[in-house]
């Protein structure tokens, strides 16, 4: 493993500034230990208000019914499904970074994986809320699980919504396990550094008696690799199955065979955009992080966005092509309706946000301009939201029989629930930043060790510290 990583990484610095093991530990672990900066209070407050809005929206939904939303016949799915797919997509970056990039031995993942995984978990939490509460009777939504009952009544396994239940719940479980597994050594570090008894006890319980022995590390590495292997198909399967929610049906605009890869690419695209959206402000809020999430990390993430953005854009183009090539009047109309129909704005917003704007990322200067990058990442997030809007609403509102055509407009409750989940997400991210080491300390040290202290490294591992690699240019090894 180490040998494979080295040559690649040597060209790119993964750290900025002078690092020592102690410094890495201290820089990251002291964030939860120290009092939080005032900006944290502001952001947490915003998130908490959003969460309250979320709770209000859900309570009112349960009291009154789905009628408070804008959905109708024919557009029986609206914001809930759009937001579900959007959040699930956002979660994908975390899993991709932690699992696939681990298996591909991309060392640069180490500095952002904890962060991205947390994002995944919170995004899936937000996502999972929607399919549950979008049902007409959420109190019986547990019927979607194959629970034993005296009627011997099973769920209907041919329905993609049923597959969804398994896909999303598995995804959430594995993501949480993966995240928590990775946290254990760091929690032990926190325990060891803790000054108050309470912190000691809590971290002690959470770190499961981790002592850092070689056997611990061996088991840990094995389990981590196994979980990575488990997660890898999930990256592809979850959003493929989400896409089948649509592709299984006969609705023009849904009944599309390219949906699985197109959805997965879109998910990664939006996931990386969300990581950037979060990382850039966090780097400002916690300047210590800049040493580990370098401009190069940001540059790579931007490049991943550019690549997946093109896959997604290819999907749009092929949808247009197949609409025409199908020689089917319903499919042809769909394309025309997307271009010029009542929701043309949503479609062209999608093309602008996901097709045009990401092309700016070809320019290295823009990839290194944090403000522009932040704006682009927000635009991509909006674009991906519009993509789901286009798929869900435009396809449904005008399908086969013109007599049954309709219109859809979200209500204030649609918005409040959506913004509420964003608030919840922000709150959770800031709680995460407050209480958990945001970066994987152990893994960073491991990388540091392998790159600069490892076998064949010129300084050995006797405790002397290597000179810090230059911020840019070649790595420290010669």
């Amino acid at each position, binding site marked *: 493993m180490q040998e494979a990583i080295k040559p690649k990484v040597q060209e790119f610095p993964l750290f900025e500034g002078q690092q020592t093991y102690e410094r890495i530990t201290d820089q990251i672990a002291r964030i939860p230990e120290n009092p939080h900066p005032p900006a944290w209070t502001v952001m947490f407050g915003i998130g908490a208000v959003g969460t309250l809005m979320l709770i209000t929206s859900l309570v009112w939904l349960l009291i*009154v*019914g*789905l*009628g408070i*939303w*804008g*959905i*109708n*016949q*024919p*557009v*029986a*799915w609206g914001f809930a499904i759009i937001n579900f797919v959007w959040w699930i997509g956002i979660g994908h970056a975390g899993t991709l970074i932690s699992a696939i990039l681990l298996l591909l031995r991309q060392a640069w993942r180490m500095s952002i994986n904890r962060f991205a995984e947390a994002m995944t978990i919170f995004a899936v939490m937000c996502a999972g809320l929607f*399919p549950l509460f*979008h*049902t*007409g*009777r*959420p109190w*019986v*939504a547990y*019927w*979607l699980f194959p629970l034993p009952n005296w009627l011997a*009544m*099973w*769920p*209907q396994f*041919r*329905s*993609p*919504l*049923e597959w969804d*239940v398994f896909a999303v719940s598995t995804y959430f479980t594995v993501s949480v396990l993966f995240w928590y597994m990775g946290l254990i050594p760091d929690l032990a570090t926190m325990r060891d550094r803790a000054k108050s008894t309470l912190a000691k006890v809590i971290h002690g319980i959470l770190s499961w008696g981790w002592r850092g022995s070689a056997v611990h590390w061996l088991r840990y590495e094995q389990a981590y690799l196994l979980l990575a292997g488990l997660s890898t198909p999930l990256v592809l399967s979850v959003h493929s199955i989400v896409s089948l*929610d649509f592709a*299984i*049906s*006969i*609705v023009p605009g849904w009944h599309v065979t390219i949906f699985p890869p197109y959805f997965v690419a879109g998910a990664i695209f939006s996931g990386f955009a969300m990581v950037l959206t979060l990382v850039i402000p966090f780097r400002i809020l916690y300047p210590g992080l800049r040493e580990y999430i370098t401009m190069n990390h940001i540059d790579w993430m931007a490049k991943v966005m550019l690549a997946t953005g093109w896959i997604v854009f290819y999907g749009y183009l092929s949808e247009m092509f197949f609409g025409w090539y199908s020689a089917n*009047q*319903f499919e042809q*109309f769909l394309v025309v309706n997307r271009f*010029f*129909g*009542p929701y*043309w704005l949503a479609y062209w917003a999608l093309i602008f946000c996901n097709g045009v704007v990401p092309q700016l990322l070809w320019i290295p200067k823009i990839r290194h301009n944090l403000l522009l990058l932040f704006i682009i990442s927000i635009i991509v997030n909006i674009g991906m939201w519009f993509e789901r809007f286009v798929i869900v609403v435009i396809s*449904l509102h*005008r*399908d*086969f*029989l*013109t*007599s*049954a*055509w*309709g*219109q859809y407009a979200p209500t204030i409750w649609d918005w409040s629930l959506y913004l509420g989940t964003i608030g919840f997400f922000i709150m959770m991210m800031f709680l995460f930043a407050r209480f958990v080491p945001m970066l994987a300390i152990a893994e960073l040290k491991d990388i540091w060790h392998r790159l600069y202290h490892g076998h064949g490294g010129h300084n050995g591992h006797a405790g002397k510290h290597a000179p810090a690699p230059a911020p840019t240019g070649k790595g420290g090894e010669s």
Partner: protein
Amino acid sequence: MEKRTHEQGTGEKFWRSLNELMEAPDFEEHLAREFPRHAQPLSDFVSRRQFLKLMGASMALAGLSACGYKPQGPIISQSKTPPEHLPGETLYFATALAVSGFATGVLAKSYEGRPIKIEGNPNHPASLGATSAITQAMLLDLYDPDRSQNLLKFGRVAGWSTFTGELLQQIAIQNAKQGAGVRILTGAITSPTLADQIQQFLKANPQAKWYQYEAVSWENVYEGTKLAFGEWLYPLYRLDQVDVLVALDSDILYSGPGAVRYAHDFMQGRKVRKGQERMNRLFVAEPMFTVTGMTADERLPIPSSKIGRLAYEIARLLDAPVQAEVAGELTPEEQKWAQVVAGELKAHAGRSLLVVGEAQPPAVHAIAHAINHALGNIGNTVVFIAPPEAKPTLHTQDIRQLAQEIQNGAVEVLIMLGVNPAYDAPADLNFAELIPKVPFSVHLGAYVDETAALCVWHVPETHPLETWGDVRAFDGTVSIQQPLIYPLYSNTRTALELMALINGQAGKQTYELVQAYWQKASGLSGAQFDKFWRQSVHDGVMPRTARPVKTVALKQNPLVVQVPALLDTVQAADTLEIRFAPDPTIYDGRFANNAWLQELPKPVTRTCWDNLAFMSLNTFKKLGLWSKATYAWNEDVSFVRDQVPLIEIRLDGKSLVVAAYPIPGHVDDAITLHLGYGRTRAGAKGSGAGFNAYTLRTTSNLWFARGAEVIPTRQSYTVARTEEHHLIDTRQKDPELDSTAHRPILLTGTLEEFRQDPELKNKPHRKGYEHVHPSMYPERFRYDRYENPDNFRYAWGMVIDPTLCTGCSACVTACQAENNIPVVGKEQVVRRREMLWLRIDRYFKGSPENPKVYQAPVPCMHCENAGCELVCPVAATVHDHEGLNVMIYNRCVGTRYCSNNCPYKVRRFNYYRYSYMKSPVLHLMQNPDVTVRGRGVMEKCTYCVQRISKARINAKRENRRIRDGEVIPACQQACPTGAIVFGDLNDPNSKVRQLRDQPHNFAMLGELNYRPRTTYLAKIDNPHPELSGAEASHAGSH
């Protein structure tokens, strides 16, 4: 309520002992004032116990005397159950429901003593087993929680003793003056018993007067026959004998007393089947699409004011014996149309008919009579009878005279029975201001309406399903109305009871009054009368009471008629015509509080809960409203938004602000306004809906007027409609395809095409349908694979013949009544959440100036490969072994994926708790055989599975197969024309199978391979070769 007590002040009265108080004669009244709720033991809330007790008693008596009952007197315990009364079983009772006095015979379905459904009476001439949507919906009126329940004096609850005292005192004073100050105002009365009571009063008080007023009356028809034949006559059309029907501004198939029968009869000539390739032809000239116009083979949009000119032109071409001075010119198209129509009429002389609508002035009716006379149609396709009303009259003249008399102070006692002139009288009479001038006014009505609010006394009216009565059909046939239920509210009275009270027969029950009248009228007595009575009540029609056909002769030959000056007005480009018409669902406003009718999409416009100013697209554009109201990316594909502009219409110094709405096929420079909306005191549902067109309607402009001015306002108005898009495909690229998106939805063809190729193979619709989609999966549900040996397997299916569908929507309301379908209200319809399981799709084809209309009822298709079943994660919608796509409400979690994957979009979702009814009285109306759906579950058409189950139980008991025609779903039952046929596709002899095997049978969206069990026959029409060609080139010029 507290407030009311305080205001009254009389509530502060002191008494010395309770006894003193209770013995006081006005104790009842006092009690009612203090505790209005206690004044009505059977009010809104009827306790189940009390209810069953009363029903038990009435049912027991029903067993004794063929459904007779004594509302008062000793209650008899049901120790012996009448033999026909089985718990859980429904019984049918024949009765009749009347609109404007004209009856439709019905069979009311009674479950444990509550009427729960109205069905047509096959014996009745106006029904033949079918009904209109209005008749279906009259059930809801019975249970309407907004019904008036209390006797009111100046709007306050009062007691009967006071009312009776005051009324009889007034009558006594008037008796001395021979009734000089008494005026009775009623609607059109056909009830012989009621008319007899009124006549008794008039006989005793010769100076008193009886006026009748209906906002929509037949006076022009009567005046027309007077012009032609010298007397008031009522025409009866024999549309089953007609080969060519020309309807001029007449909605003969939908509106008017005989419409259900006429639609039935007319469609007998349009059942196009293989080997039966003939069809009648319908020409319609009208300003705005009506149901009849939508059915037309050839239609001419023309202003109402030009109909007379057109009729005269046809008469001239036919050398009909009529002479009139007419001015104005017909356009070349109208001229051509007249020529073709004249030619067709002549070619089918004796089997043709020209009818004119009730809005046209008498002279135009006279022209029509002359034409029919010239063609020898009189006696063949049209006959005349004496008017079915007890006292035919000219309603406008009546109301004008009454207004004058009130103005002059001649009216001291005004008794208004079931009318609402404060709302619907012509605006120039200012009737609402006149009523308070009458010192003693009494209003009998089912609602505390606009008139009730102005009267001294208001008496709540009994619903016809609660009481005895008699009423005539359009052909004069008498039906005895019998009560299905004890009056829900104890204070209600019928007009008959009120007249009996005035006539000094207080305490007489309606039963006695009606029976006494018929004993006298029939001349029978004893057992003979009993038999006659029982038979009449049982059958719902009284034998030999239809009015005899009169032989008529033209008064003069040729007729010389004066065409009113209005018709001479040359159509100037900038004078707008206003046309008033009764609303297609709430009629003249009397059904404004009927939520079923309010929510029923209007047959032509598919709007509901509103009336709008309908106009052509050209006029809409000309008035500068187009850009405000529509979304369009180009001329070809556009639709009207929910928000339409409000306009102010000014006519003869009166003005009305109303929402403007463009509708294809409307004649240019004209606006159609439907009456019946804009009510202020209709009840919780009707008040405030729509715009009051009566404010523009005056005695001189009763039906149409020219010279209206339109001023656009800056405001807009939200309309509720269930179909948002119009045509708007003017390109004519492929005229066979549906509008907007060129999609083959309905298979259409002309009779000529059908003759040449009954399968209509070359139509685009067939392209996809012909394709066979083989499947690797076992096709368990294919009806044609349901072969022996398991012969007991049913394969339920439905075939709908759009050729026969007029779009009258009776099926929709019938479905609503049968299946406990909730009403959601305008706001929810705007948000497209209407719950109706059955909808009628309406498509336009051709130019927006004069398109063709295609309609089809769309229920759940019960697909053999149903997409909804595949995507439900909890198996809440599954297939049963007989091919029904069944919905398990209990299992549904409400993901709504089934609806998304339904290409027909026939599924309905309970976004809110729509079925919740705050008022317990509405619970009585629910059909106990159909589950009431809660919030958050999906629902849809079940093919009336409860009726299938019932038939299955009966068949199993007799160990036989269910017979063809034994299961009739509610929609099929209500359909006047037989457009819907349901049955067992596995039975090669069943009607439905035979229709399904017709060559022109097709599946809607068949290319999707859902294999729907509901299929359609091609919509066949019979255009005239000369006109269609002309229209095509006309349309091409756009």
